[in-house]
């Protein structure tokens, strides 16, 4: 009897409020005067083109900046610029480029790179596993936090190079001491960012999940972990960078391979162009792998990008 009246009454406001509310600021339509519904597709295409255009502009600016740096480097070395900073003995970019081309044709160069990447990957994956677990434990348990924090605070400022002697003494093989040093570099940013992310989980979401029947483990999987994920992703990206940063220190130990070893060896042989080649390869690979980490995390953070 009254059900019909209820039902139809419910229909109307719902339909009306849809039209009304889709203009509200909560909608993620990018341009301020964008209209939803019918023209939504078109808007999105436009939005995409806008993003690409903006991206292209950024890339162009970055490339131009690199070019400026290259030209300056060339001119400074060519004119043997010596104004407080001395460019007299700095290898010019063309000679570095030549050296780089020579190495590109040399299979051993790729072994250096592959060996380094394997070390980074091993250390990094270990740091990710241990770092995320430690960060979560610290955030969820007061005891764990009080126990681990002093170690983090004391160990974190120690530079990778300072670890060389102890790493050699402590670990059974050269390889494991190098991996240890890259591992350590990645560990701290991952732990601290995980800790921070988990701490930031809104309590209301935990409560909501409990009232929906979630167990502790389910709360962890469905609420705490995703809430912490943006922060964890940032930690993973930073950790990857620091891992490369520590690589050279680790590979000083190495007697044969690795791009850090390659650089260090060039230094011992006073082969200046090769030093710069090594530096740039480390920089480039560090950038690329950091970017790869960000890219790998992106599918899990899609909800966040849409929210803006």
């Amino acid at each position, binding site marked *: 009897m009254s059900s019909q009246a209820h039902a139809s009454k419910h229909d109307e406001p719902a339909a009306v409020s849809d039209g009304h509310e889709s203009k509200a600021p909560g909608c993620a339509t990018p341009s301020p005067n964008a209209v939803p519904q019918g023209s939504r597709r078109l808007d999105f295409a436009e939005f995409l083109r806008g993003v690409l255009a903006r991206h292209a502009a950024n890339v162009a600016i970055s490339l131009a900046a690199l070019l400026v740096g290259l030209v300056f480097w060339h001119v400074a070395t060519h004119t043997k610029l010596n104004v407080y900073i001395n460019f007299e003995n700095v290898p010019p970019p063309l000679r570095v480029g030549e050296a780089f081309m020579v190495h590109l044709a040399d299979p051993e160069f790729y072994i250096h790179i592959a060996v380094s990447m394997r070390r980074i990957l091993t250390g990094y994956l270990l740091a990710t596993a241990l770092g995320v677990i430690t960060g979560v434990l610290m955030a969820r348990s007061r005891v764990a936090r009080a126990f681990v924090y002093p170690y983090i605070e004391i160990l974190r400022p120690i530079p990778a190079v300072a670890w060389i002697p102890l790493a050699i003494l402590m670990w059974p093989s050269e390889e494991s001491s190098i991996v240890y040093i890259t591992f350590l570099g990645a560990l701290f940013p991952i732990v601290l960012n995980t800790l921070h992310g988990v701490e930031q989980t809104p309590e209301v979401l935990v409560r909501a999940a409990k009232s929906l029947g979630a167990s502790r483990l389910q709360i962890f999987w469905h609420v705490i972990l995703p809430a912490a994920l943006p922060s964890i992703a940032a930690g993973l990206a930073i950790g990857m960078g620091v891992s490369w940063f520590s690589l050279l220190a680790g590979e000083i130990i190495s007697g044969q391979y690795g791009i850090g070893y390659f650089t260090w060896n060039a230094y011992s042989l006073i082969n200046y162009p090769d030093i710069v080649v090594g530096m740039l390869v480390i920089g480039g690979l560090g950038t690329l792998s950091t970017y790869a980490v960000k890219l790998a995390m992106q599918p899990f953070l899609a*909800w966040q990008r849409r929210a803006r």
Partner: protein
Amino acid sequence: MNTHVVSLREHARDRRSGTRNAGRGQIEIRNVSIHFGRGHDAHPAVMETTLDIAPGEFVCLLGPSGCGKSTLLNSMAGYVKPSSGTVLVDGEAVSGPGPDRGMVFQQYSLFPWKTIRDNIGFGPKLAGRGYAETDSVANTFLEMIGLTKFADKYPAELSGGMQQRVGIARALANYPSVLLMDEPFGALDAQTRLMMQESLLATWSAFSTTVVFVTHDVDEAVFLADRVLIMSAGPGAIIADLRVPLDRPRAADMATTPQFMQLKKQCLDLIRAESLKAFEQQNR
């Protein structure tokens, strides 16, 4: 076009038949006091409250800010343990949050990383219902709140009113015997709020769950409730239990009837007295 409400009703009936009967959702609050803090900092939020809510009743908790409305509601939800006394739901002491008591918060309580569909289906999924059943429950509720088109969007892409409709649907998807709502429409604009109130009543009539609804808006309380409970300034205790003499279904134009106005005035007078007391307490 009304099929979705009809099918909802069938859903609800299906779930109820069997082991559970229609008389679910009874709440008994026995001498409940709730204190926060210890030693010097200890202060009472709820004092010696006793209260009975019948199955299927719609009850509004009204009171000045800080009087303990949320605290009392949270004790029913199981987030807060009473310092003394007991809270019973369907005869069982509440020992923690559970899917038999759905909760709707004021705002921002949807999981931002889950789509609207997955937010609504989360309860059924946790309850171990299969993929197909979860999906069908989610679809039913999406239709009920009129947001089928938004099923695969994320919460941040919806307006506040839409998000709150999803919040209600998410809580109801577990077919709880009690629905607890803490100022669910407090952050909405007046127009949206009115529409939300009407659609909540329509939903409630299909589900016949018990609803405990916290608000500080007298019009809202009188429009929605079977009973309006008024709480005193902190520490909270219930000082008035007023039955609303309006017929159901409620319609927006009832707000101008003498019965409505009279009850509203009665509430306002009580609230004003309590708010003044609260104000003096806080400024002492």
